[in-house]
C-alpha cells in the first residue's frame, strides 16, 4: 500500500477517529466538571436552607418589625437590628467613598503611563498585598494605631464643629470613624485591582484616537479613558461595597458594638457582621434564632450587591470588547 502514502488517496495513514478510551476520558471529564459545578450550587443552597431554617422561627415571631427596632436585649427577649443595618450601610458607604477615590486614582496612576512598567508592577503588587493581611491584624492596628492617631483631630472637630451631625459627639475610643478608615484600606485593593483591569482593557486604538484629537493627557483620561472604563469601575465599587458589608473581625474589634443609630462618626456603632461575631458565643436559643435572622438579612444584602456587580461587569465588558 505504499502508493496510498502520496497523492490525494491517503486517508487513514496518519489520521484516525478518537479511540473508545479517549471518548470515555472525555465523558468522565465532562461529568466530573458538571458534578463539581453542581456541588458548588448545592452547597450554596444548603447554606441558605440551613440558615433560613434556623432563622425561620425568629422570622415568624419577630416579623418585619425586627428590621426597624434598635434594641438587642436577650434578658427581656427584645431583638431588632435597625442600628446594625444603619451601621453596616453607613460605615460601608463612607469606606467606599474613600476607597473609591483612592482606588480609582491609584488605578489611573498605575495604568496611564505615569510610571515605568516595572515600578508599576511593584506598586500594584504592594497594593494587592493589602488584601492578604488578615482581618484580625487590621483590627489590632485599628485599636493600637488608628484610634489614638485620630482621637485628637476628632475631638478638635467635635469642639469646633459640634453643630455638624457627623461631628456631634466626642470620641472616647472605638467608633465609626476608625472602623471606616480601616474598612477603606481593606476595600481598597478590590477597587484598585478591578478598576485597573477595566482601564487596561481599553484597546490602544482608543487612546490613539483621543490623542489624535489633540487631547492633553488629563483630557484623554477624564474625557475618554474613564468614561470608556466606567462600567468596570462601577463594578469595582459594587464589589468593594459587597466586601465592606460583610467584613467582620476588624470591625467587631474597633466599631464599639453599640446598639444606637447616630450620625456621629465618633460615636460607637455596630454592624450586622460584628453583631454576629461578638454575640454568638454566649447566645441562648432564642437569641440564636434572632442572630440567624440577622445573618439572613446580611446574606441577602451581600448576595444582591455582589450579583449586581457581576451583572454590571458582564454587561459592560460585552460593550467594550466590541
Amino acid at each position: 500500500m505504499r502508493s496510498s502514502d502520496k497523492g490525494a488517496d491517503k486517508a487513514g495513514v496518519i489520521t484516525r477517529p478518537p479511540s473508545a478510551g479517549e471518548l470515555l476520558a472525555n465523558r468522565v471529564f465532562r461529568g466530573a466538571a458538571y458534578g463539581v459545578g453542581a456541588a458548588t450550587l448545592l452547597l450554596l443552597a444548603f447554606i441558605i436552607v440551613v440558615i433560613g431554617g434556623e432563622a425561620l422561627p425568629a422570622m415568624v415571631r419577630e416579623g418585619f418589625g425586627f428590621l426597624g427596632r434598635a434594641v438587642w436585649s436577650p434578658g427581656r427577649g427584645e431583638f431588632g437590628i435597625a442600628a446594625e443595618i444603619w451601621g453596616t450601610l453607613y460605615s460601608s458607604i463612607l469606606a467606599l467613598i474613600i476607597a473609591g477615590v483612592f482606588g480609582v486614582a491609584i488605578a489611573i496612576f498605575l495604568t496611564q503611563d505615569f510610571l515605568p512598567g516595572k515600578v508599576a508592577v511593584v506598586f500594584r503588587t504592594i497594593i494587592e498585598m493589602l488584601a492578604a493581611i488578615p482581618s484580625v491584624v487590621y483590627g489590632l492596628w485599628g485599636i493600637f494605631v488608628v484610634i489614638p492617631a485620630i482621637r485628637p483631630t476628632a475631638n478638635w472637630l467635635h469642639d469646633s464643629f459640634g453643630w455638624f451631625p457627623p461631628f456631634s459627639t466626642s470620641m472616647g475610643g472605638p467608633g465609626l470613624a476608625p472602623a471606616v478608615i480601616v474598612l477603606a484600606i481593606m476595600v481598597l485593593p478590590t477597587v484598585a485591582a478591578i478598576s485597573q483591569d477595566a482601564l487596561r482593557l481599553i484597546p490602544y486604538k482608543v487612546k490613539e484616537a483621543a490623542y489624535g484629537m489633540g487631547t492633553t493627557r488629563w483630557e484623554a483620561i477624564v474625557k475618554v479613558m474613564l468614561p470608556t472604563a466606567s462600567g468596570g469601575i462601577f463594578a469595582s465599587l459594587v464589589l468593594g461595597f459587597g466586601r465592606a458589608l460583610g467584613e467582620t473581625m476588624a470591625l467587631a474589634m474597633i466599631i464599639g458594638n453599640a446598639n444606637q443609630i447616630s450620625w456621629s462618626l465618633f460615636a460607637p456603632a455596630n454592624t450586622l457582621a460584628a453583631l454576629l461575631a461578638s454575640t454568638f458565643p454566649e447566645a441562648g436559643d432564642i437569641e440564636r434564632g434572632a442572630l440567624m435572622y440577622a445573618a439572613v438579612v446580611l446574606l441577602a444584602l451581600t448576595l444582591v450587591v455582589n450579583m449586581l456587580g457581576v451583572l454590571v461587569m458582564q454587561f459592560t465588558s460585552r460593550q467594550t470588547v466590541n
Partner: protein
Amino acid sequence: MSLAAVDIPASDAGILPDRDYAIRADVSKIFYGDFLAVRDSRIGVEKGKITGFIGPSGCGKSTVLRSLNRMNDLIPIFRLEGTVDFMGQDIYAKGVDPVAVRRYIGMVFQQPNPFSMSIYENVAFGLRLNRFKGDMDERVQSALEKAGLWKEVKDKLKQSGLALSGGQQQRLCIARAIATQPSVLLMDEPCSALDPIATRIVEELMLELKQDFSVAIVTHNMQQAVRVADTTAFFSVDISQGGRTGFLVEVGPTKQLFDEPREKLTRDYVSGQFS
C-alpha cells in the same frame, strides 16, 4: 542585492517649487531607540489635493505620516531629525506642543476607533475639546453629512458609536476628525479593516473631502492610490545596512508614477516585481 545599490533620489524630489503645500516635511532621520526606521525623505502634502503614500511593508510610510502631526511622540523612544513645516512653523521646533499640532492636523486610523459614547458625542468631542461656542447641533450635522453618514444615523444620534458597522464606524471617525475643520487630514490605511463596499464609499468620500481639506493617505493597496491620489509617493526599504530602513524613492503625479516611473525600484514595485 538590488536594494543596496539604490541612489538616494535628488533631495528636491518630494517637493516641487511650483506647488502649494500645507505641510512640507524634510525628514533626514527617524529613530526608534537605536533603530533607524526612516531616512532621507522629503515630502509635501499639497493643499486641496490627496497625496498617497505607497510602498512595501516596513518602508516607513506610516511612520512618516504619523510624524506629520506628532502622533509618534506617543512612543517614548521615537526621535526625528529634520523639520516638518506647517503654516510656516516647524512643528518639531522647541516649545511646540504636540497637543496643539494634533488639533490642527486631524487623523483617521487603520482600525475604526470611535469612543464608547453616543454618535453625537463622538462628533462633538473635538468641538467640546476646543471649547466651541457656536451651534453644536449644526456642526455635528454638517460633519456627519460631509462624512456621508448623516442619512444613516440621523434618527439614532444618541446610540453608541460602537453599535455601527465597521464602515460606518470609520465614517464616524472621519466625521469626528473633520468636525473641528482641521486644515490637514492624515489617513493611515483607513480602509484596511473595511470590506470592498465600505472601502468604495470611503474612497468616494475622500474625493469630496479634498475640496475642504488637504489629505495625505497611507495605503498598501496600489489600486486605491490610483483611484484617489493626485500625487503619489513611493517609499522603499533599504536592508543594506543590516537593518530595515525606509526611505522615499520617488514622488510624482499618480498617473506618471504608475505609468512612467523615473526609478527602477518604483517600476519594479508598481509592476508587481516585489512587495
